[in-house]
């Protein structure tokens, strides 16, 4: 691993290192001192205190949600494309028949615990009925909270 060098070369290398060594260490210290005395460079965000001004990007893939207005009207026709697109079966579309005999959405069961937030369901939906919301504060202590039903009203369409 170490080849033999002559004494003169050793001495020359030793003396050269006496100069370059400490100089390189001083260069390293200069970077650290520059960052220490420069509080403008601090990148930490104080999280719960800055919630009011915190805004996620609009494409952020948080939780899945169904686009509904106040009365609960949505665009879902229970076609099941999202259920087939999901890589790990986090969606169950339970269809029912309405009074006219047409197939409509009964319950849209969403297993948030196993969802990987990949967004393939949103991409697969031909009607634009679902979207990924920017909600990221979704931690909970009760696992039953994670089995969600996304549509408000059953049996409409």
């Amino acid at each position, binding site marked *: *691993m*170490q080849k033999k060098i002559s004494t003169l070369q050793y001495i020359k290398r030793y003396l050269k*290192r006496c100069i*370059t*060594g400490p100089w*390189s*260490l001083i*260069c*390293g210290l*200069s*970077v*650290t001192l*520059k960052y220490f005395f420069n509080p403008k460079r601090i*990148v930490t965000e104080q999280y719960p205190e800055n919630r009011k001004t915190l805004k*996620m*990007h609009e*494409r*952020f*893939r948080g939780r899945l949600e169904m686009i509904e207005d106040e009365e609960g009207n949505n665009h879902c026709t229970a076609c099941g494309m999202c259920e087939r*697109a999901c*890589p790990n079966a986090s969606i169950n579309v339970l269809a029912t028949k309405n009074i006219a005999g047409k197939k409509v959405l009964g319950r849209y069961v969403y297993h948030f615990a196993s969802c*990987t*937030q*990949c*967004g*393939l369901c949103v*991409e697969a939906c031909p009607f634009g009925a679902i979207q*990924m919301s920017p909600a990221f504060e979704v931690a909970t202590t009760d696992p039953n909270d994670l089995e969600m039903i996304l549509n408000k009203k059953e049996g409409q369409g």
Partner: protein
Amino acid sequence: MSHQLPPGFRLERKSNTEEFFINMGPQHPSTHGALRLTLRMDGETIVELVPHFGYIHRGMEKQAESMSYLQYIAMSDRQDYLTAIQNNLGVVIALEKGMNVGVPLRGEYIRVMLQELGRIASHLVFYGCFGGDLGGQTCLLFGFKEREMIHDMLEEVTGSRLTTNFFRPGGSRYDVPDTFIPRVKAFLDHMEDTMKDYERFLSKNIIVLERSIGIGVLSKEDAIAYGCSGPVLRASGVNFDVRRANPYSIYDQFDFDVPVFHNGDCYDRYQIRIAEIHQSLKILRQCVEKFPEGPWRSKEKPVRLPVGRYYSEIETAKGLYATYVVAATTGEKPYRIHTRGPSFPHIAALNKMVQGHKISDLVTIMATLDPVIPEIDR
């Protein structure tokens, strides 16, 4: 010395000194993932090393047999998670060969820009882990601080910081928003200043030089024999970069150098990645100047591959990442997808590199090989 030898050891009975086994187990601060290394040591010197994988095996290739192609793209993020965006491209290029679709120019520019951003992100993790494993924990924070800017950009474009799931056959899932190009320009300026600081911090530091020059030498023949690729191969003197040897996307239209070093030791592997960051910044500058208007995706078709075998290889930050898709029926699901990750040969070559060195050198060598264990285990 226990009589239960860990598997894979061939113990010679001739030496008088007592050798002992140390286990750098799956939980260790500096093995880059869940990797178990069993070391046979003579004092502080390592005589032999046997790595054991499989701690993070998730059965991705088996799962791929029952998933559609699009779902596999979402899963490929989780292989080399430090540059998920590059893994997506590897799979998508293989699918495009099967579906025989092209990508419009703007789509290709988006691809190149995101690829280079991913490459810089991965090399920043390398910088952080290199300094951090050597003992200067400040470096770890420095590397990740700049990576946050890249994550922000990726989140704005793809919707997620890490598991991007962005590229599709024919282009990408969305177009880039209007704020993307200004952000990239600001990032480029910031990065060039910061890289000067970071290089001054580590590159000529005498302790770093002492600890990495001459350590872990991988000769040219060994590198080729083990199948190493990427920065590890180029640091040993072989001028092979998939972007030049087998160009994909529009890399042949950009002017960039491929840095090659000849000593094959740890310091060269460090220098080559710093040089690659600079080259990526150069490519990004050219992209930002020439960014075209137009469609970002060719016409959206259902992802169905005809019967056949399709292979693509790309140059990720770690090395040569290849995807091999076997479609036995024309349909939405493959028969088999195999991924060739670049970190497996590097870990295989670790035994050769580490003989006769000490534990501290093992940590340095692992840091410069920059493996990602989930990519090996899948």
